[in-house]
């Protein structure tokens, strides 16, 4: 069973760029990498998904190196409202294990 590893917590000031890296050494060929965000007392919500290279949307960017053994979620110019837990999820086509883990708790301060 493959697993993901990401920092337990990160701190940032408003306006800074935040990069959260996730390691997934056992990623399979057909797996996608998905990031979710969770605010207190809410269910997680989708942020971004990618397979390789770089993906960008209105919220974040996702950088995936060629070997795909890690990925980096980049949040540009964070605000206080970006304080949340961020989960890296690597899906599997065979076997349905869904390991969100503990995620990375991001605290943004003024």
């Amino acid at each position, binding site marked *: 069973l493959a697993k993901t590893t990401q920092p337990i917590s990160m701190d940032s000031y408003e306006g800074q760029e935040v990069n959260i890296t996730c390691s997934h050494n056992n990623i399979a060929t057909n797996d996608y990498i998905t990031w979710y965000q969770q605010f207190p007392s809410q*269910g997680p919500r989708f942020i971004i998904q990618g397979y390789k290279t770089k993906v960008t949307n209105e919220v974040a960017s996702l950088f995936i190196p060629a070997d795909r053994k890690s990925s980096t979620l980049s949040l540009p110019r964070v605000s206080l409202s970006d304080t949340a837990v961020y989960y890296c999820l690597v899906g599997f086509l065979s076997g349905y294990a869904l390991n969100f883990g503990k995620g990375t708790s991001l605290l943004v301060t003024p």
Partner: protein
Amino acid sequence: GAGVSQSPSNKVTEKGKDVELRCDPISGHTALYWYRQSLGQGLEFLIYFQGNSAPDKSGLPSDRFSAERTGGSVSTLTIQRTQQEDSAVYLCASSLFRTQDTQYFGPGTRLTVL
């Protein structure tokens, strides 16, 4: 359209009682997931339904936990003989087809076992 709904939003029960938690997925979503989140912990996978296939129960922590999905839509998670360690938020999610698809989460049911 409507999102994933769960009921009840809060449930307080006594140790040893059985509880049932309900999840209504997004219409048309064939995949349904149950997770558990204890205080300060991450999301723990419990069970996964995909269409009419046999569910993946690999995350269920004990045989006191069971789940069913009727007619490919509504799902019920049942916990028998509840224990204090079962206290947690139980989250349900659905996705269009497979685990790679975006999961849409419900608001969760907060279960407190006294």
